[in-house]
């Protein structure tokens, strides 16, 4: 009843091809943005911002990047942690070695470095597909892990292996309070999500999706596979590299190579799968799910009034996490984004059932 588009006529092609053609959609998105930018910083506690919202936003950006690669282009990649590390260390080295450089420019350049690394490690995708490619990207992950642990130049020759990021300032405004960090991450995520949405609706996105669906047929109709696959790796690595820089600078503050290990890659892959492959909103929903879940699971024994050792709690967490993943895959393999779409469809027909 509220969501019908009856009476909304478009008078130009541009209006017809808008990202949100339905008026109610635009109101809805504007409302969400207003809540996110204005309401949330006002009512959230510092813990909520630092422990939940900021990691959620940064990991949503990484999941967005990975979704472009896995969901839209069909190239399975397990090297996300490594690319985040590339972004983080590149940003660190740029900020430390070129002190005059603005941190934001450093982030973008770090994203560029991650892009180059992503293209280099994406070269095997031209020859191999599927699980083989997944293991090739695992090679990238372990190799990058090793490079950042052993090659002292990247960590500025610190003896401990753990480095601290310089503070981020822009035009005398320092991003040190949680609210400012939250707004920074939110702005970057919103911008990048807009860019991603437009990319996938355009020529490049269609090339990616054709390659995902049947790459031989795509090649036959004229989509150059090298261009499609490597551009997917490039754009995805850019997003992931910037996310890595943000993760290191904004969330962690100081880190060591272990922060970007293979578990990080798997958790971002989980976000993409549970959120929904091939969906921008899905990446964000998946990131929210995976970020909030361990916190909920941690609190669960307390709420139930059962006391158990922390070791037992972490074992139970692992079990429930695994069960939830399998449950999700069985019940809704297309992810949370599909549940959302089903909800919207129901809303269109409400109050009628069909």
């Amino acid at each position: 009843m509220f969501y019908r588009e009856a009476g909304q006529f478009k008078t130009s092609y541009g209006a017809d091809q808008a990202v949100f053609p339905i008026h109610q959609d635009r109101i809805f998105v504007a409302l969400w943005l207003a809540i996110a930018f204005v309401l949330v910083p006002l009512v959230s506690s510092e813990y909520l911002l630092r422990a939940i919202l900021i990691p959620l936003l940064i990991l949503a950006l990484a999941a967005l990047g990975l979704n472009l690669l896995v969901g839209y282009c069909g190239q399975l990649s397990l090297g996300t942690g490594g690319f985040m590390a590339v972004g983080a260390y590149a940003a660190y080295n740029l900020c430390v070695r070129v002190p005059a450089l603005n941190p934001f420019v450093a982030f973008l350049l770090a994203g560029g470095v991650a892009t180059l690394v992503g293209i280099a490690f994406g070269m095997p995708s031209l020859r191999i597909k599927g699980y083989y490619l997944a293991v090739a990207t695992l090679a990238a992950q372990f190799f990058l892990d090793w490079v950042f642990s052993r090659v002292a130049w990247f960590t500025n020759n610190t003896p401990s292996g753990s480095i601290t990021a310089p503070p981020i300032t822009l035009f005398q405004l320092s991003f040190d309070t949680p609210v400012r960090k939250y707004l920074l991450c939110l702005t970057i995520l919103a911008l990048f999500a807009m860019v991603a949405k437009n990319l996938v609706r355009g020529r490049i996105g269609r090339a990616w999706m054709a390659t995902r669906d049947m790459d031989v047929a795509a090649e036959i109709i004229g989509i150059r596979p090298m261009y499609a696959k490597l551009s997917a790796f490039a754009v995805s690595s850019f997003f992931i590299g910037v996310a890595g820089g943000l993760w290191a600078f904004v969330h962690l503050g100081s880190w060591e190579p272990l922060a970007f290990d293979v578990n990080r890659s798997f958790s971002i892959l989980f976000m993409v799968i549970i959120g929904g492959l091939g969906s921008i909103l899905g990446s964000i929903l998946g990131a929210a799910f995976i970020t909030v879940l361990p916190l909920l699971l941690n609190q669960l024994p307390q709420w139930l009034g059962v006391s158990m050792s922390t070791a037992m709690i972490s074992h139970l967490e692992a079990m429930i996490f695994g069960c939830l993943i399998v449950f999700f895959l069985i019940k809704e393999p297309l992810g949370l984004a599909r549940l959302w779409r089903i909800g919207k469809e129901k809303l269109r027909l409400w109050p009628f059932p069909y």
Partner: protein
Amino acid sequence: MGFFLEVVLGGLMAGVLYSLVALGFVLIFKASGVFNFAQGAMVLFAALTLVRLMELLKHTFNPLLIALLLTIAVMIALAWAIERLVLRPLVNQPGISLFMATLGISYVLDGFGQAVWGSDVYVLDVGIPKRPLVLLESVVPGGVLVPSEDLFAALIAGLLVVGLGVFFQKTRIGRALRAVADDHQAAQSVGIPLNYIWVIVWAVAGLVALVAGIVWGSKLGVQFSLGLIALKALPVLILGGFESILGAVVGGLIIGVGEKLSEVYLGPRVGGGIENWFAYVLALVFLLVRPEGLFGERHIDRV
């Protein structure tokens, strides 16, 4: 020369251990097309169950035998549970869904195994002699030092491969498994019950995981890091091809030797610790030359 031989032999032994884990992967991939990431967790679970049962039953007349039988029963029950709860509902889903499901299973097995049996390091002693042997004294001055438990591991792995080969070639169930590996739908239309076959495959893979767990566990002690061996077996699979038992063995040997040689000869030049990624890079190089692995089946993409 003697040192080089020792490194090569050590690499071959390590390679045998990798092959044992990769065998389980290959079995499941051949028969159900599922890349079972939970194989490492199964190795850990099987070893944990065996060790703890041996401890619980240590006052009976033969703790090893009873614990072994009970563990085999547990692994068969696990295979049945996985088939019923995970594989059957996910029957026609794309490969990545099944891969993620096995990832979920590995988390569950890790958590469950450690919640039930505890997460300490346990010593597994099944009677494998641990005395190091010195071989080839006449050929090389001083001889070559070979740990005899590695020799035993190689022997067990060899027996296992031969046993699996006989199972697949000579028995009726083995033929049915090969038929399912070839083409699920054709096998089903001939009357082979797919669900039953999958339980059998996962049970056999579970038993292979048990053997791998025993061998690794006696060498390293049963601890949580056993579950991470799955990640090490992946390059073995790439090298050998995902669908070939011979490939798993040969790939394991190549990876083992390559790793040890690179660590000893290349490692000091680049700061050490390259064991972690060398296997992957080696597999990657092989892949660029032969994308299906040495013994894998060529995929012909049809439009």
